[in-house]
């Protein structure tokens, strides 16, 4: 684990790190990866990965519109909203 990898992960995760945090993360995440590397001690060839602890399948819902306009309440939660829209700094495509 080195700082450039940490920097790359932090970018993917959109986390701004201070120099201290970067150093701390390099060490601690390195240690955690050593713990995780114990997984390599076992042969799992041919084992199907288990993503859900339950063996049941997905239940679906009927195609019904059940929601009413809650925009007033929900926009009130926003740090910045105007004219019914959430605002972010201008995005240039």
């Amino acid at each position, binding site marked *: 684990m080195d700082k450039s990898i940490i920097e790359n992960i932090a970018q993917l995760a959109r986390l701004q790190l201070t120099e201290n945090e970067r150093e701390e993360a390099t060490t601690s995440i390195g240690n955690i990866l050593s713990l995780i590397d114990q997984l390599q001690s076992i042969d799992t060839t041919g084992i199907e990965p288990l993503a859900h602890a339950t063996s049941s399948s997905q239940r679906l819902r009927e195609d019904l519109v059940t929601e009413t306009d809650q925009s007033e309440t929900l926009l009130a939660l926003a740090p910045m909203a*105007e004219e019914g829209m959430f605002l972010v700094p201008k995005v240039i495509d």
Partner: protein
Amino acid sequence: MSWEIVIGLEVHVQLATKSKLFSGSSTSFGAKPNTHANIFDLALPGTLPVMNVEALRMAVSFGLAIDAEIGMKSVFDRKNYFYPDLPKGYQTSQLAYPIVGKGSLTITLEDGSTKTIGVTRAHLEEDAGKSIHDAFPAHTGIDLNRAGTPLLEIVSEPELRSAKEAVAYLKKLHSLILYLRISDGNMSQGSMRCDANVSVRKVGSVEFGTRTEIKNINSFRFVEKAINIEAERQIDILEDGGKITQETRLYDANKNETRSMRSKEIANDYRYFPEPDLLPIMIDEAYVQTIRNTLPELPEAKSARFQSQYGLSTYDSNVLSADRDTAEFFELVAQGCSNPKLAANWIMVDLQAVLNKQEISISESPVTTESLTLLIQRILDNTLSSKTAKTVFEAMQEGNTDVDGIIEAKGLKQMTDTGAIEAIILQVLESSPTQVAQYLAGEKKVFGFFIGQVMKESKGKANPAQVNAILKEKLG
């Protein structure tokens, strides 16, 4: 040096469900910003997705229509990236286990030949919201009404070899989704959007060239132009000894050029993994069979049947079956009037002209199946001539469906009373002694003059067949 274009299309089709893929919010278009975005659509903490069964049905019916493998087990995955119109910070999509696997679509090329294009897969995913860049001076506004609308992403094999083939494929797809009624297919509203992967290679080459992806092309015309201009750009680069950069490009219709979208080039690592909030969807053969049973007759089958059942030409039946509403309109009229060829002509020529002029679809047509059927019946029972029928049809374009009323009001009823026709004929012959003499002297072509005079006197209402017969008899 000769180049070949290689194209693969990724088409996003918005499914016409009433509610969103994973929430009970409405999917209707054009509402005030964020009024169709509930706590799940806004990704509030603690909210969970519950999938819409209708989206599943639509996806499976599409799969069956292109003869594809249906994913009996399909799995949702999270595709992770940050963007303000993606509230959860991940898009729920399908990667390893899509609902629809390999299938194919047959397209008809301009020369009438056909080509089968492989469909790699089709999977369900959520649409994103919209970013409004021009409403605020320093900010971008986010409207999440569209966020979570179900999309079917249909991915073709790189088997298209020209922009025209790409357009034919898209049109075929468009026709199919309208047939299945799984989308409104409205490209200008974004219900069907197309990304094109384009590369070029020397003819005869087996290897593919480096491709670029042109994003979000929103009309058939632009698809053709965008592919051609991008292929030209790539060929120019290669012929100058350059290299193509694999990248995402945007088509600018105003300038008719593609340009690099640098914002998309920040190394994306989507970190797909199985969506833990959604268990696998398991479907069985019985479910698939139920959907198969409700599939409508598809364009190819319908066209073939129109030829055998109604005796239409290949061309006519292809045109009439390309659109499901048109085909159904035709069948109602054809069966109602018992003259399929006449029905086909009226729909393809006269009605189509009206629809084009008024810029409406056949489902909004002012001429109904009942009124067109009656009009044709009035031709067949000699009430109208083909000429007077056009006059009636003109009134029908304005929304008047009372065919007999129009005939009555305009006094267009065809004259079939032998006595009355005879009276006109006698009068014409009497007032044209010179022409009668010419005719009797052997100038048979003067016969046309008498017909014309009789029709004129009868204001076009005399039945031409009867006029012909009586004239011949009188002129002995």
